[in-house]
C-alpha cells in the first residue's frame, strides 16, 4: 500500500504551557499557519495539554474528529512524550502515532535557547510542519514480544552499585557486579567517617560489601572492566575483561604472608591517595572484599626483571600464578546499571595554590586517608614537610568547582566533608589545632546538615567568607601564607598556617567517556551521565534498559546515592519482572543478536 497522506487524519495540539509558550509566541498566528498546512485535519490549543483537562480535550478531539495521529507542540519529549502516548492509547491511537515536539525551549524564560517572538513563531511553524510531514508518512511500527533475561549487570562496586546490586539480588535477579579495582567498596570505604552522622564508613559499608560477597545472587567480578555491550533491553550481551591478579582467588586466604615478603615498595596512589606505600603484591586494605592478594604487574620485580618470586615461596596455599592472563568473559543481562562514581579533581592546574609545589598543601581526599585510623598514617595528622603536628590548618573550598576556568558546577559534597574533617581533627586528632575554612558560600542543604554545620561552629572552627587569591610558601618554615579578605571584619587577613587542605571538585570517574561510548549513553556538558529528565526521570538514560545512579550521574553524597540506587533497581525490576517485554520490531532486528546484515 503506498503511503498516502490524504488518508491520514492528523490532529495538532498547541499547548500554551501557561505563559511559558503563550507568552513568547503569537499562538493565534501559529494556529492559523498550522490550519493551512496540508495534511492537518484538526488544530486546537490547550492551556496545559498535560493536565487532566488538557488530556481529556485531546481524547475528545481524537474521537469527535476521528483522528488517527496526533502531534502535541509543547515541551520536551523527554518530559511528557510518555504521558501523551498513554493519553492517545486510551483514545485508541497507536503510541508511535503520537508525537511531542518541543516549541517551548524557544519561548521559556531562563532557557538558554530562548529567541524573540518572531523567530519563535517561524521556528515553531517549521518544526510542526516537519512533524506533520513525518507523521503523515509514518507507518505502524510492528511490535514484537521478546523474553527478558532475569539478570542485571551493575558497573561499579561503590556504595551506589552495591545498593542496587543487593536490592536486585534480594528480589531474585542474578547480578553480575563489575568493579575496575581489586576490591569493592569504592570511595566510601576510604572516607573514614561519613556525614552527617559521623558513622565510621566501614561500619555501615562493610555489612554491605560482606553480604554482597556471600550473596548467592551476586557474582563479584573485581579487577574487571566492561569492554563491549550489544543488544537491547531484556537482552544485552556484555563482554567483561578480567585483568590478571596473578593469584588464584579460590586458594588465596588473604593471610598476607606474601605481602610481608615482597621487597618492592610502591607509592599507593589509589588506596592511600599517594600518602602511603604498598608492596608490588598487596591486599588493598584490611576490610577489602574480596580479601585476596593482587600483583601489580607494572612494579613486580619478577615481572620486570625475571628474578624474585619470593611471594611464591612464601604462599602457604600455592595461590600465586604468574602465568595468569587477561581473559574476556561473556555475560547476558536484561538491564544494566551504571554506578561508576567520581574522582577527585587534581588541583595542580590551579597553580596559585601550589598543590604540586608546596609539601604542606594536600587535598581533602588525602586528609581523609590521613585521618583514617586504618589508613597510611594510622590516623596521625602530621605535616608532610617535617612530620610535625600542624598547629593551624586552612581549608579552601571550591577548588576546581564553581570556577569558569575549570568546572563550573558546584560539587555539592565539599562543604560537608570539610565540616566533617574539621570536626574529626578538633574532636579526635588535634584538639588544639586552629582550623580556618575559607568558603564562598556554605551549602549545607541536606537533611540534618544544618545541625551538622551548627555543631562545627560550636567546636570553634573559624569560617571566613572569602577566597584566598594565592598561597605562598614561607621558604624556611614551609608554612603557607595566604591573604584573604574577611568581609565580616572588613579587613584583609594575612593567614599563615602550617597546612592547607584543598576541597577539590568531584569529577566523573576516569574512563566515564570510554564506557559511555561502549554503552551508547549520553553525557552531560560536565561529563557526567545524562539522565532523561533531571526531575521526572533522574535514573534513566537515553538507552532503554540502561540506568544510572550515584555520583556517575552528578556530584552527590551517600544518602542521595543510595536513593538513586534504589530507584534504578526499582526501574530495572519494573521492566524485567514479567519476563517478557513488548518492543518495536526494528529495535530487535537492528540491535539484537539476530540483527540483519
Amino acid at each position, binding site marked *: 500500500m503506498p503511503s498516502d497522506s490524504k488518508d491520514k487524519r492528523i490532529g495538532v495540539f498547541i499547548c500554551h504551557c501557561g505563559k511559558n509558550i503563550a507568552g513568547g509566541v503569537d499562538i493565534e498566528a501559529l494556529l492559523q499557519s498550522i490550519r493551512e498546512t496540508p495534511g492537518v485535519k484538526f488544530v486546537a490549543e490547550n492551556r496545559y495539554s498535560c493536565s487532566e483537562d488538557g488530556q481529556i480535550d485531546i481524547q475528545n478531539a481524537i474521537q469527535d474528529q476521528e483522528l488517527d495521529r496526533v502531534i502535541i507542540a509543547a515541551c520536551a519529549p523527554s518530559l511528557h512524550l510518555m504521558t501523551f502516548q498513554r493519553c492517545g492509547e486510551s483514545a485508541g491511537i497507536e503510541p508511535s502515532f503520537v508525537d511531542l515536539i518541543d516549541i517551548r525551549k524557544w519561548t521559556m524564560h531562563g532557557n538558554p535557547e530562548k529567541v524573540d517572538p518572531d523567530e519563535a513563531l517561524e521556528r515553531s511553524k517549521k518544526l510542526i510542519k516537519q512533524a506533520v510531514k513525518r507523521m503523515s508518512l509514518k507507518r505502524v511500527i510492528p511490535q514484537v514480544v521478546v523474553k527478558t533475561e532475569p539478570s542485571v549487570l551493575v558497573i561499579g562496586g561503590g556504595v551506589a552499585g552495591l545498593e542496587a546490586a543487593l536490592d536486585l539480588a534480594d528480589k531474585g535477579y542474578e547480578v553480575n557486579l563489575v568493579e575496575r579495582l581489586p576490591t569493592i567498596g569504592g570511595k566510601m570505604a576510604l572516607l573514614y567517617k561519613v556525614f552527617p552522622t559521623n558513622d565510621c564508613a566501614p561500619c555501615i559499608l562493610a555489612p554491605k560489601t560482606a553480604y554482597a560477597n556471600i550473596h548467592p545472587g551476586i557474582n563479584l567480578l573485581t579487577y574487571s572492566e566492561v569492554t563491549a555491550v550489544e543488544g537491547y533491553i531484556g537482552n544485552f550481551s556484555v563482554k567483561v575483561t578480567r585483568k590478571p591478579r596473578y593469584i588464584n582467588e579460590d586458594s588465596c586466604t588473604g593471610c598476607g604472608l606474601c605481602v610481608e615478603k615482597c621487597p618492592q615498595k610502591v607509592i599507593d596512589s589509589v588506596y592511600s591517595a599517594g600518602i602511603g606505600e604498598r608492596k608490588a603484591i598487596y591486599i588493598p586494605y584490611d576490610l577489602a572484599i574480596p580479601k585476596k592478594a593482587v600483583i601489580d604487574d607494572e612494579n613486580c620485580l619478577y615481572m620486570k626483571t625475571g628474578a624474585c618470586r619470593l611471594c611464591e615461596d612464601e604462599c602457604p596455599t600455592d595461590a600465586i600464578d604468574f602465568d595468569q592472563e587477561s581473559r574476556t568473559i561473556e555475560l547476558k543481562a536484561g538491564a544494566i546499571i551504571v554506578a561508576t562514581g567520581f574522582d577527585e579533581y587534581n588541583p595542580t592546574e590551579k597553580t596559585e595554590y601550589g598543590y604540586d609545589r608546596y609539601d604542606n598543601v594536600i587535598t581533602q581526599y588525602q586528609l581523609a586517608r590521613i585521618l583514617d585510623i586504618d589508613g597510611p598514617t594510622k590516623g596521625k595528622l602530621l605535616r608532610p614537610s617535617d612530620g610535625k603536628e600542624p598547629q593551624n590548618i586552612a581549608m579552601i573550598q571550591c577548588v576546581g568547582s564553581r570556577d*569558569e576556568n575549570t568546572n563550573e558546577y558546584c560539587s555539592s559534597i565539599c562543604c560537608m566533608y570539610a565540616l566533617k574533617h574539621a570536626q574529626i581533627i578538633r574532636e579526635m586528632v588535634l584538639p588544639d589545632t586552629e582550623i580556618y575554612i575559607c568558603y564562598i558560600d556554605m551549602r549545607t542543604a541536606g537533611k540534618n546538615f544544618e545541625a551538622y554545620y551548627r555543631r562545627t561552629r560550636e567546636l570553634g572552627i573559624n569560617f571566613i567568607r572569602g*577566597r*584566598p*587569591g594565592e598561597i605562598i610558601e614561607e621558604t624556611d618554615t614551609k608554612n603557607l601564607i595566604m591573604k584573604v579578605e574577611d568581609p565580616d571584619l572588613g579587613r*584583609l587577613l594575612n593567614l599563615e598556617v602550617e597546612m592547607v587542605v584543598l576541597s577539590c571538585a568531584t569529577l566523573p570517574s576516569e574512563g566515564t567517556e570510554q564506557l559511555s561510548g561502549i554503552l551508547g549513553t549520553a553525557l552531560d556538558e560536565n561529563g557526567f551521565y545524562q539522565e532523561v529528565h533531571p526531575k521526572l526521570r533522574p535514573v534513566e538514560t537515553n538507552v532503554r534498559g540502561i540506568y544510572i545512579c550515584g555520583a556517575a550521574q552528578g556530584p552527590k553524597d551517600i544518602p542521595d546515592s543510595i536513593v538513586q540506587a534504589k530507584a534504578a533497581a526499582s526501574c530495572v525490576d519494573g521492566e524485567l519482572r514479567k519476563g517478557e517485554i513488548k518492543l518495536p520490531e526494528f529495535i530487535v532486528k537492528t540491535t539484537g543478536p539476530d540483527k540483519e546484515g
Partner: protein
Amino acid sequence: MKPDDIPEDMPEDIPEDMPENISGDDSEETVQVPNLDPAFKYEVMRNEGAGGLKYCFACGACTASCPIHEIDHGFDPRKLARMVQLGMKDEVLSSPLIWYCSACRNCEQHCPQSVEFFNILNVLKNMAAEKGYAPYAWVVQTRHLMRTGMVFRTDEAWETRRKALSLPPLQLDGEKVRELIELSGLDELIVKKRP
C-alpha cells in the same frame, strides 16, 4: 588642538593631586538605595570586556590578590564591583579610588568566575575621565605625548647624555600621535574641568 593650546595652569611636572592614602574615605554613612542609579551596572557592562561583572559572586579572590589593597585597604576590587552593581555611580566615578590600581591583573588571574576586573576598572576610569576626573599625572603624560610621542618630558641634557653613552638619537615627533589622539577625542578630554 596643538599641545601648546593646553591651558597654562596645567602644571608641567606631575603634581600629586591624589590623596596619599584613601583608607580614610571609608564612609560610615548609610547608602540611600532610592538615590542610586540601577542602570549604571548595565552602562558599565555594555563595554567590551566588562560583561563578566554579572557573574561576580563576591568571593573576594580579587581583593585578596590585590597588592594595592594590602597597602591601602581603601582600594578594594570586591567593594568597587559591589558599588557598581548597586548603582553608586557618582560615588564611584568621582572617587580617587579607581586610579590607584597598579594594573598587575592578579584580580583577573585568580577570579573563579572570569570576571575581568581590570577591564571593568578601565571602563570606570574612562567614564570618570569623560566627566573630567582624569588625574593630572595622566593629563601631563598625554601632553608630552602630543609633543614628542613619549610620555616624559625631554630636554637637551638628556639628549647629550644619550650621545655620551653612544646611544642612538631618538626622533621625537609627536605629529602622528597627536593626530590619533585628536581623532579619538582624548585631546578634548584632558582639558575638561573637574565637576
